[in-house]
């Protein structure tokens, strides 16, 4: 317990953990794919930030720039038959299961070709065939759904898991406590993943909770849990692998909390410096030195796995994909007017 408290003290101090990752012992291809996927998510969201600022995107976008290591580190332990649920800040989650820029951009633009056929926008994403069941902006809304999806997986005799990505704010909702208790007692192989970015909307966790870690809710329900450096993709991957595999094999829940930080404010492209409470420009700059992509890429340069030029080429290639996906999405059709009413019910008759 003291170890955890010490770790937490260091994790919430952005001056710690800024060093490049130690990549020794990993396959080059694994590192390359991991870096590639994180960069895809980063650049896609930077595109959304700029188009939102420009006004092309009409609705709000909640960006997870800075938090990519959580989505990618976790998803490397998942398969397409798992049942993943997200929240308001879930571009990273859906892309980590299927990095289809065009479908994400089309959805954010409200186009028929989007992940949710233009009916969900940024905050209601679905890609069921790739394991991403859905994200919703009601804080903690999908948590019990993940428990149910996991329960169904167990009932059907599979070893698939249900997973809910939530933030530190969701922990304050009562249904998360109910869900932990229910998942434990049934049991149901539900993976609760907390991206603790230390803020709920505008407000720092220190003003909302008596502790800055959320693991105590798992402890209270006898759910296996871990506190990790959420900006270290290799640590997220390695440590979550153990817990996720236990859930698969035993049908029991687990809880993984990673401390991280978002570079943007709660919503859209602004940095929101002191719009809220306890979020200064100095903090943001310090946290940007713990950037998860930078730590991995520099680690890979130092180990001579890729060169800086290689990485520039990766960035250029992804940027090109983003431009062509965006242009295609812009030209795609909106849902036709009849869809307003024909998608309310299943219309099975």
């Amino acid at each position: 317990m003291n170890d955890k408290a010490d770790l937490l003290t260091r994790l919430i101090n952005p001056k710690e953990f800024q060093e490049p990752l130690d990549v020794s012992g990993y396959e080059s291809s694994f590192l390359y794919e991991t870096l590639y996927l994180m960069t895809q998510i980063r650049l896609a969201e930077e595109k959304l930030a700029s188009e939102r600022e420009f006004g092309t995107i009409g609705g709000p976008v909640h960006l997870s720039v800075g938090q990519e290591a959580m989505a990618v580190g976790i998803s490397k332990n998942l398969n397409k038959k798992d049942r993943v649920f997200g929240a308001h800040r879930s571009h990273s989650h859906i892309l980590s299961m299927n990095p289809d820029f065009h479908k994400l951009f089309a959805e954010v633009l409200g186009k028929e070709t989007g992940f949710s056929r233009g009916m969900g926008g940024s905050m209601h994403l679905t890609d069921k065939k790739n394991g991403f069941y859905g994200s919703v902006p009601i804080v903690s809304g999908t948590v019990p759904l993940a428990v149910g999806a996991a329960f169904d997986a167990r009932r059907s005799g599979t070893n698939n898991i249900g997973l809910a990505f939530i933030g530190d704010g969701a922990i304050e909702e009562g249904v998360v406590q109910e869900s932990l208790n229910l998942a434990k007692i049934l049991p149901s192989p539900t993976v609760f993943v907390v991206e603790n970015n230390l803020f709920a909307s505008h407000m720092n966790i220190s003003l909302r909770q008596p502790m800055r870690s959320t693991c105590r809710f798992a402890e209270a329900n006898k759910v296996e849990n871990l506190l990790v450096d959420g900006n270290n993709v290799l640590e997220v991957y390695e440590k979550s692998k153990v817990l996720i595999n236990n859930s698969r094999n035993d049908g029991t829940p687990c809880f993984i909390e990673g401390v991280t930080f978002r570079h943007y404010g709660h919503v859209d492209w602004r940095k929101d410096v002191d719009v809220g409470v306890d979020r200064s420009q100095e903090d943001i700059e310090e946290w940007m030195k713990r950037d998860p992509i930078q730590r991995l890429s520099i680690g890979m340069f130092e180990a001579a796995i890729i060169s800086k030029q290689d990485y520039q080429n990766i960035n250029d290639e992804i940027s090109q994909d983003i431009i062509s996906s965006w242009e295609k999405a812009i030209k795609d059709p909106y849902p036709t007017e009849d869809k307003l009413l024909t998608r309310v019910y299943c219309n099975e008759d």
Partner: protein
Amino acid sequence: MKTKENYGSAILSAFEYLLDNYPEVFVIGQGLWSPWYVGNTMKDLDSKFGKDRIIDTPVSESAVTGLGVGASLCGSKPIVVHPRIDFMLYAIDSIVNQAAKWSHMTGAQSHPGITIRGIINRGGEQGAQHSQSLHSWFAHIPGLRVLMPYSVADARDMLIAAALSKDPVMYIDDRWLYDTKDELDPISEKSISEFKPKIIKYGEDLTIIGSSFSTKLALGASLELEKERISVEVIDIRTLNPFDSKLLIESVKKTKRFAVIDGGWKNSGFSAEVTSSIVESMEPNQLLSKPLRITLANSPAPTSKPLEDIYFPNISSVIRDIKANFFL
């Protein structure tokens, strides 16, 4: 070959049919291993079908209902049981924000085919938080199907149709109907969209419209009024959402007078939806009398017996109100 059933045993028959024929059906909620909670409607299901399909739960309406929604997205056909609707309010997010909207906001790519059984359990001096129906709330929400069976056959057949529907369904049954008796034909599956409003008694002078226990009041009152040569047509709404008022409008065009009985409050209640859907389809001169709504008083349910007696409409209060409104 007809079988004798009452409303409660008909619900039990529906559960047995579903559990026998559909392995993807499971039932979850509070009190399911202690069936006094839900009358005779779930008697011995846990011993017959196993505690892994008939699941009693922690006191967590919200998580349990959300579990049902999540499982339904994966192919299970869960029936979540709330022994009192009052307690179900903890589950509003899973019902209203998640289940009801899921099809629309995912572009109809997935459908939460969950059934939520909410039981109306009131009277007996139980008071404000052990009494509510709240069907009007749920009928307001696009994406939810809201069913309220009055007849014994519907109690059985609508539960089966609800469980087999791909849409989220709120099935609301009323304990005051559990002793209603009938002889039923063998089960044949019906589509949920077949349970539209139905004329259960033909008449010429007045149409009375109800749902669930209110239909029983309507029928009881109509039989008394018949003795005074007042011919009453009675319509049972059955499905409140999506609501189809066509039959009601046709009936009122014939009788030119109508009353609505509803087990909810008058203020923004379902009786207002029924009334306005009829009136807006009529010309001003097509009615011989102003319409009448018979509802609960706009107060929480009282515990004190004399207040409770005037709070819930009964057959004689319905007859009194109808005579006063229509000058019969």
